[in-house]
């Protein structure tokens, strides 16, 4: 299948030149900071601003009309790309395998990638894709850390020879609120430039605070341990239909003790594995209820491995504020 999907290769830069490639390939026009795509590939627009000599921000708000694989190629510019994804649909990748058993995968909406590593994104047709990216020169980030801290916690991260994506997870709460309110504004509003700059500076502040408080403890762990936890997390998220497998099993898979696993997991994701799993399940439940494929709440509950519909309803209501039954009736 994948060879039939056209691939568009591009790069990012801290200056606006990268946009020309997009327009050449996808069609459309550039008007000052804005970029409007042509209907051929997607409906929507993009906004690019240099907010500091070392920091730029990109907004992409579009609905893709036909499948396309977007590949960002590695380039030599020395900056980080910080992704915030606030697309409409939460778990978009529903894969049907040979047994026609449906598996769900939830998506991590926050990531930091070094520009020297390429990455690909397969856009989902017909869904609103809304994303903000901060491009930050590494030397600028360094200025927020003392030399001692830096030597201890971040040496590897800024080491050019080690090209690695070293963080992905969920958007923190404060940033999510900022992004939510930014999303209410339209790119064509006359004050959009200011609103976006305001949001971008605040996000930058939150990001550096987060790096300061969370990352050191994370970087202090062995890289292979972090990878193992990430891997088990992926496994956990692709098996949302069964009950929580238990810390012991997860820890075992990652080759560590339960205590160590739990601590490391908490450091990376900010919550315990069990709570994270439950929240993901509930978000998936919402999707399922709204999909219209289910007639009864009990069906959704069973689908997700809850034996008691009443229990499912009660935790669902605690989280979302409405009973699953109400959601089902609305759709």
């Amino acid at each position: 299948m994948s060879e039939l999907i056209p691939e568009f290769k591009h790069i990012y830069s801290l200056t606006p030149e990268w946009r020309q490639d997009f327009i050449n390939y996808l069609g459309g026009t550039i008007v000052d900071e804005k970029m409007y795509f042509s209907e051929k590939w997607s409906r929507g627009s993009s906004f690019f601003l240099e907010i500091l000599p070392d920091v730029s921000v990109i907004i992409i708000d579009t609905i893709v009309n036909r499948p396309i694989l977007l590949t960002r190629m590695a380039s030599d510019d020395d900056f980080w790309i910080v992704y915030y994804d606030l697309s409409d649909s939460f778990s978009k990748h529903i894969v049907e395998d040979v047994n026609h058993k449906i598996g769900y995968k939830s998506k991590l909406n926050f990531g930091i990638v070094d520009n020297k590593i390429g990455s690909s994104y397969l856009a989902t047709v017909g869904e609103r894709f809304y994303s903000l990216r901060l491009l930050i020169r590494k030397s600028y980030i360094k200025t927020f850390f003392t030399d001692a801290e830096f030597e201890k916690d971040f040496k590897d991260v800024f080491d050019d020879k080690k090209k690695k994506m070293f963080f992905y997870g969920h958007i923190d709460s404060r940033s999510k609120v900022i992004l939510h309110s930014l999303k209410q504004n339209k790119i064509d509003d006359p004050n959009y430039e200011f609103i976006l700059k305001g949001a971008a500076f605040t996000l930058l502040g939150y990001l550096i605070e987060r790096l300061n408080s969370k990352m050191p403890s994370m970087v202090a762990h062995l890289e292979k341990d972090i990878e193992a936890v990430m891997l088990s997390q992926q496994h956990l998220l692709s098996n949302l239909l069964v009950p929580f497998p238990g810390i012991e099993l997860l820890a075992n898979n990652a080759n560590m003790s339960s205590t160590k696993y739990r601590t490391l997991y908490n450091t990376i994701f900010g919550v315990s594995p069990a709570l994270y799993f439950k929240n993901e399940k509930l978000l998936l439940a919402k999707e399922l209820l709204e999909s219209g494929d289910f007639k009864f709440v009990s069906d959704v509950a069973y689908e997700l491995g809850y034996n008691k519909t009443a229990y499912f309803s009660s935790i669902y209501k605690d989280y979302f504020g409405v009973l699953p039954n109400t959601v089902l009736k609305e759709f």
Partner: protein
Amino acid sequence: MKTVTYNYNSSLNWVDVLAEATGGCLEGNFIKGDNEMFKGTHFFLPIEDGITAMLIDTTYKEEVLLKYRNENNNFIGFHFYLTNLDIDFILDDEVTLLGKLNYNLSIVDCTIDLDYIVKKGTRLFVICILFDKEALKKYFSKITPIADIILDAQKNTVIRLDRMGTESLILINDFRKISSDSSLYKVYFKGLVYGLIGNCLEQLNNKKIIIDKTITADIKNIIASKTMLQNSIEGPFPGVNFLAEQVAMSPSKYKILFAKISGVNPGTYFYNNKLNRAKELLETGKFTVNEVAHKLNYANVSYLAKRFNEMYGIYPKEYQNLF
């Protein structure tokens, strides 16, 4: 009464003058002062070409007359005031009050001579955004009617007094939580300044808030009543009838005036502020969502969760978990 004369512009050569006039000393981007007149700081930062911003956070120990006399005429100042006591704002021998219950946003052309009388014990928290006229024209050209709104036709200079919207107040309050020692202070300050400009332009563009040249007693009553609502944010909504009665107005008049000043009706204003309070309580990490719902008098957690998500795009539990 002591007199301080300010003389500033959108480039930074006024900083030394200011430091001298106030008797403060210059440390980096701060002018810090603690003398017989006042205690506090002035923080200034060039934001971008043509925009400079300053934050004044001072407590005055005696009554002071602040005079603004500018020699150059190339900029326009946006001032956002948060004060505990009212300030007399003097323009052409006409006194207007600025402060908690009066105007708290002014847009003033630098060619106009301004005097402020600040009373003893006033805590003055002001954010000034100075726009180069050229820079402003560039941005304002995107908003056609804006020149008509802020231009004083008789004097052919820009002057406008107004009240800032709730969004701006929330931005400022969020910013005040950040310590001035933080290495991110400048980053957050820029975020704040751009956010304020964005909100302010929207406010002007939508003509959301239109107040005549003088604030009438009725409008003052409404503002007082808003403050009262803020103070009783943890209880139930008292109802428009009760609120109107408190300020001796008919409920319908109250509602219309309230919406005119705040941009939203009393109920929405109250519940939005309640949600903001809920958010702040969750940030402290001292309360569970359940406790917050109880404390703020929500009938149940579910309703709070639903409203919270509508407002902020995230559920309270998630908000707390990811904090």
